């Protein structure tokens, strides 16, 4: 079996076990936190009879093991139950809200790579110069403040005082785009409406940048420190002594090995953003899954909590598998270690 396939099979197997563990854990946790989901769902004016009837309908009057059995049986049919928050099937909610979060996180991820890695390279290349100091200061700011603080600052700066970007939403109210994938930037292109594409892109800039800032800072600082370390290696000295062009040394010999830790961090950041995007989504009124996840937790909407956590966990695991494969692709030693094992 080729080492990459073996690595993939191993990672997927582990991920499946993790996912089953997460489902059991979140199922139990959601049921032991205080509060009666039926009471919360029916509102403060519901009578005791109404609450009891809903508890029975949701199987909440049965032992937790029996409830988990019902959950697994339904899950096998692709049924995650009905959300008490939206009164719709949880799968419908996830299908509607996940693309918005994924689109936001993907654009933020691209920003992390496009801005984070080059900033790290430039900083390392001009280490201890004013450029290096400036990059380090900016990236430190990015890492220090949480995303929602950046969200509010960016909104105030570029939507309120300097109204260059929209304040909220995914697209202007006047535009209607038929939903195909749920990714607005894709759907606008499918519809052949470039003006709407531009509008959707214009809406995503601020929230994605607010979400990405911390990751950009982390990636830049990590890339810089790794490159500085790599620049001290004998083979770089040898390349320099051979008179190789600086761009070639930086790009081919210094950057590639330095990229591996950065890639790992970007991968982890990218996956974490799926769950952490809720505050940015809340500030920019972005109708995504993270915001939905927080709303359902606050309402103790059991089915929706379990469904959302499972999906985010699955995404997290998928991203990690992809990062592992990418690293194996970049770093031959990992490929060969798989073969050896």
């Amino acid at each position, binding site marked *: 079996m080729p080492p990459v396939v073996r690595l993939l099979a191993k990672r997927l197997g582990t991920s499946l076990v993790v996912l089953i563990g997460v489902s059991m854990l979140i199922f139990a946790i959601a049921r032991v936190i205080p509060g009666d989901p039926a009471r919360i769902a029916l509102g*403060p004016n519901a009578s005791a009879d109404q609450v009891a009837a809903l508890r029975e309908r949701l199987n909440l009057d049965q032992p937790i093991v029996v409830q988990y059995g019902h959950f697994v049986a339904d899950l096998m049919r692709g049924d995650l139950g009905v959300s008490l928050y939206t009164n719709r099937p949880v799968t419908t909610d996830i299908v509607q809200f996940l693309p918005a979060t994924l689109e936001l996180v993907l654009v933020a991820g691209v920003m992390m790579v496009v801005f984070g890695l080059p900033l790290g390279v430039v900083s390392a290349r001009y280490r201890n110069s004013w450029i290096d100091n400036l990059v380090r200061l900016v990236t430190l700011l990015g890492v220090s403040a949480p995303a929602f603080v950046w969200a509010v600052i960016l909104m105030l700066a570029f939507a309120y005082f300097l109204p260059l970007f929209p304040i909220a939403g995914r697209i202007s109210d006047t535009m209607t785009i038929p939903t195909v994938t749920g990714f607005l930037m894709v759907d606008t292109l499918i519809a052949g409406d*470039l003006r709407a594409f*531009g509008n959707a892109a214009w809406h995503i800039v601020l929230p994605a940048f607010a979400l990405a800032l911390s990751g950009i800072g982390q990636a830049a600082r990590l890339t810089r420190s790794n490159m500085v370390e790599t620049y001290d290696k004998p083979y770089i000295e040898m390349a320099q002594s051979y008179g190789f062009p600086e761009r070639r040394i930086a790009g081919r010999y210094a950057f590639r090995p330095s990229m591996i830790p950065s890639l790992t961090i970007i991968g982890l950041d990218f996956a974490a953003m799926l769950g952490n995007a809720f505050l940015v989504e809340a500030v920019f009124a972005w109708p995504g899954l993270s915001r939905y996840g927080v709303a359902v937790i606050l309402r103790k909407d059991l089915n929706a909590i379990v469904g959302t956590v499972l999906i985010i966990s699955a995404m997290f695991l998928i991203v990690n598998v992809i990062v592992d494969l990418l690293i194996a692709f970049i770093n031959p030693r990992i490929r060969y270690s798989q073969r050896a094992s």
Partner: protein
Amino acid sequence: MKTMVKSLAAALFAGTALTAHLASPALAETVLRVDEVAVGELDPGKATDYADSVLMFNVYDTLVLSAQGSGGVVPHLAESWETDGVTYTFKLRGDVKFQSGNPLTAEDVVFSLDRMKTLGQGLSYLFAGVQGAEAVDGSTVKFTLSNPYSPFLSALLRLPIVDKKLVMANLGEGDGEMKDWGQAFLSTNGAGTGAYKVVSHNPQQETVLAKNADYFLGVPAKAPDTVRYRYGLEAATVRTLIAQGEHDISSQWLPPEVLKSLAAEGAQLLTESGGSGFYVKMNTAKPPFDDLNCRLAVANAFDYDAAIKMVAITDTVSQGSPASGPLPVGMMGSLPAADAFKRDLDAAKKHLSECQHKDFTLELSWIGEVPLEERFALLMQANFAEIGIKSEVKKVPWALFTEMVTKPENTPNISQVFVNAVTGDPDTLIYGMYHSSASGTWQSPEYLKDAKVDELLDKGRTVTAQEDRAAAYTEVSKRLRELQPSIYAYDQTGVFAASKRVSVPALSDPSKGFSLNGMGFTFRLMEMNE
């Protein structure tokens, strides 16, 4: 590849360059943008919250309507009715059509009641005493009650009439002949006669409504053509949107500081009052509040003026007004504003000295989801300390609170809740709080047991003449002032920040206001100014 990149860049640039144009709706169409914190429930059989009610009042109609300015109910889908106290027979208007084009019939009314009672959600408990309804003929419907229940007419404000034919044609999966009773369909679609139709509904984002040109009462030209009812916007986002002219009316849940800053920037402040109050509830089932003197001591020590100042927005607008008893001033049976509570430290000390319990520590709880209540808990802690009462402030999440209050021994000494009359009738405000049969809910953590109060509350339900009802509620208000199971902190006023683009007489002119919370957001009665 280069060409594609250039095309994308050009599109992005074009999108950016069109910023101003795209952010504003076309001049020909007026768009009203409103927000609420909680997601609106479209199914009228499940409506309970503020947003649910607003959607219901605009997409659906009811047999009767809350009267503007005066309180009480007036004919709406029903043009007249007769009653003997146990049966109510309504004659329906003949000119009403559903948004689908189907004519309104008595069968639709029967179906709407059956559906609500069968689902058993939302405010269906209001109809627990209704045995059933029958269509006498196509335009006459008769309701039969188990016992005389005078608030029935106002309860009908919460029975939206649903298009039976449309729902039956869209039944989802479920057991029996009625399957899911159209729950799946009505969670994203409208089936009413209302002045606004549902265009789209995204629970995470907004519900879009459009004017119903065929509305039986007509919709004025100045009413908004489209309404975007947005959900879950952060206070900072609403503030920025209104300041930039991209939002029209905020929810009432903006912090006072944000409302104040918006008012300072020229936003108008709309108000809604008369249907709700802020109640500080004392657990009378355990020491020290099982002793009347202890209750009177803290009620007299509470600083009512400071409470009003804490929720003041401007010199003239506040989120609260002085309370005179359990019923908000102006509601049927309420005590006059001149009788409003005032702080009296001497009386507080006297009552404390006569209380049988000494040297106790009060548990002052506040609901974790309502930060304002923490301020009141701290105010009470300071107020009570002035007469020598020690207290501990405790944050309790709502979900936990509703469980704690089911047992008197677990119920805190002091709880704080906002309660509103869901039909505008005093019965729906205080029966659930103070009747001994209703003890142990979030509304009744007092565990009050008083035969006189029970008798008067029952009388308010059974006597039919409005004067007799008003007298019963006045008497129960006085009795509750004597018993002091709660501190009546203030009568609540909902304050909304609004742009100058919209005029809302129902929320700015008391003579046009409604006694029912949420009805001020009847969009057909609003006027767009541009």
